[in-house]
């Protein structure tokens, strides 16, 4: 199937500063890609290239197989800019109506979207009076006008409280179910893992890692942590495991943590249950944040 977004060897310069180096990235239909990176990594720049707001210094960007500036492409596209702002003097309702007209979206969608993002009660208030989170939600509703097939969300959770963030994730899941392709860019977010298909980690304009979380975990070789508590002879078990070459650490008063590298997890669990009678066991797989930190640190290591 034709990729929705295809970025081939794109380099982007602002004056003398190169902010993207030979970026290659593609997005399949119905896929949710998380684009992660520190401030100034080049996330927003990448989105602007996909939107056709910027012309790549070199390389090629295709969206739905066309040039990004093609009006037909824009029709199929929804965008939530970072720190979205609107006309302060218009109400939320008037704002959405204006943008719906510009996009050629049916007016009936406006009320539905306001409902979806929980702004129905505030719809007739001026945007000037909205909180940051409300503006963000209005921005999201704006991005969803015209049922876009590609959604670009630049730091969508900024300003959202945890519940609104969960609502957003649920909305993303629903859209993905409907076949919408989504690129979500942000700093690393706790809890986002379950809602994306692939993650891309960007630093200083270079793509450090790209793949499904499972693949990235495997590639990174980060350990899964097994934490047990309520052990009778924690010290003995720790000694045994340390002698076998495992990395262990005491965990609380009567607990123990052991790091299981690739494939060791089940074996270690079995030993734990054979030799002990733990009151509780916790298995911690490397989070996106751990992966991110790993990839962020490794180029420095390689340079040494």
């Amino acid at each position, binding site marked *: 199937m034709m990729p929705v977004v295809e970025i081939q060897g794109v380099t982007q310069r602002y004056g003398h500063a190169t902010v993207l180096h030979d970026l290659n990235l593609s997005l399949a239909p119905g896929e949710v890609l998380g684009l992660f990176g520190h401030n100034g990594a080049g996330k927003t720049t990448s989105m602007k290239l996909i939107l056709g*707001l910027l012309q790549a210094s070199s390389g090629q960007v295709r969206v739905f197989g066309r040039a990004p500036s093609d*009006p037909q492409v*824009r029709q199929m596209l929804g965008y939530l*800019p970072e720190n979205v*702002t609107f006309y302060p*003097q218009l109400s939320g309702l008037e704002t959405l109506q*204006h943008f719906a007209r510009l*996009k050629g979206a049916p007016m009936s969608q406006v009320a539905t979207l306001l409902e979806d993002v929980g702004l129905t009660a505030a719809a007739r208030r001026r945007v000037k009076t909205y909180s940051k989170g409300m503006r963000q939600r209005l921005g999201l509703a*704006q991005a969803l006008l015209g049922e876009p097939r590609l959604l670009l969300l630049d730091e969508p959770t900024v300003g959202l409280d945890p519940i609104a963030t969960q609502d957003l994730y649920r909305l993303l899941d629903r859209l993905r179910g409907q076949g919408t392709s989504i690129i979500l860019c942000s700093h690393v977010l706790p809890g986002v893992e379950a809602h994306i298909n692939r993650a891309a980690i960007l630093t200083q304009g270079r793509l450090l890692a790209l793949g499904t979380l499972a693949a990235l975990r495997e590639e990174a070789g980060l350990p899964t942590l097994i934490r047990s508590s309520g052990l009778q002879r924690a010290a003995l078990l720790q000694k045994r495991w340390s002698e076998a070459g495992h990395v262990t650490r005491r965990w609380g008063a009567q607990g123990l943590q052991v790091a299981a590298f690739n494939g060791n997890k089940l074996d270690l669990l079995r030993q734990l249950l054979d030799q002990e009678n733990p009151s509780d066991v916790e298995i911690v797989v490397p989070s996106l944040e751990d992966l991110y930190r790993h990839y962020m640190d490794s180029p420095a290591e390689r340079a040494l």
Partner: protein
Amino acid sequence: MTPIWNMARKEFSDGLRNRWLLAISLLFAVLAIGIAWLGAAASGQLGFTSIPATIASLASLATFLMPLIALLLAYDAIVGEDESGTLLLLLTYPLGRGQILLGKFVGHGLILALATFIGFGCAMLAIALLVDDVEFSLLLWAFGRFMLTSTLLGWGFLGLAYVLSAVSAEKSTAAGLALGVWFFFVLVFDLALLALLVISEGQFSPTLLPWLLLFNPADVYRLINLSGFDTGPASVGVMALAGDLAVPTAVLWLCLALWVVGPLAWAYWLFGRRAA
């Protein structure tokens, strides 16, 4: 067409919402009626004198006001949207930069046109109703021409405002430039011409000088409105030069129209080069 109309609709309803349309119409009506009845007070008369005199006074007034209002209305059209972040959003919508610009022009232009025709139209109506033995056909012709050219003058300065807005990185810069443009066309330009006339003691190419008037839309505007009366008011200032300018009125109209199209095209070109 639809995207342009949708953009225009927002600008127009903004003009209604912030009472611009109402305020400009009222201002025009009050000033026009005031001038019609008090304009001759300087010469010791009170009350309506004549249509040519009234139009002459009104045109002098509108030469100052119309550009100022147009510039104020539109100076932040592009840079304002950029600063508030909405331009970024607009540029990702399925409409081109030309459509954005034209939409704004149609919206702003409609506000100016309506305000002109409502405001000055009221004054015309007042004269028609209250002044005895006024020549209706002359009144309608002179006022119609005055209102049409005033609108065109306003549109020209809308275009200039978009030019400023497209080159400015900040709203305050655009505001400063707008004031400068107003000052230049309304005051400096004519003073410079007069100075040229005086200093050169009339020696500076007498055939060329009157043509220079065409480089100022405000002068073209006044030339049109002062022409065509049997018993015209005595021309003062740079308008006296017009006597040497042997161009048909049609050329003046064309000139005024070019002053609308030219800046608009220039603004489009500049807007297209502006980084998103």
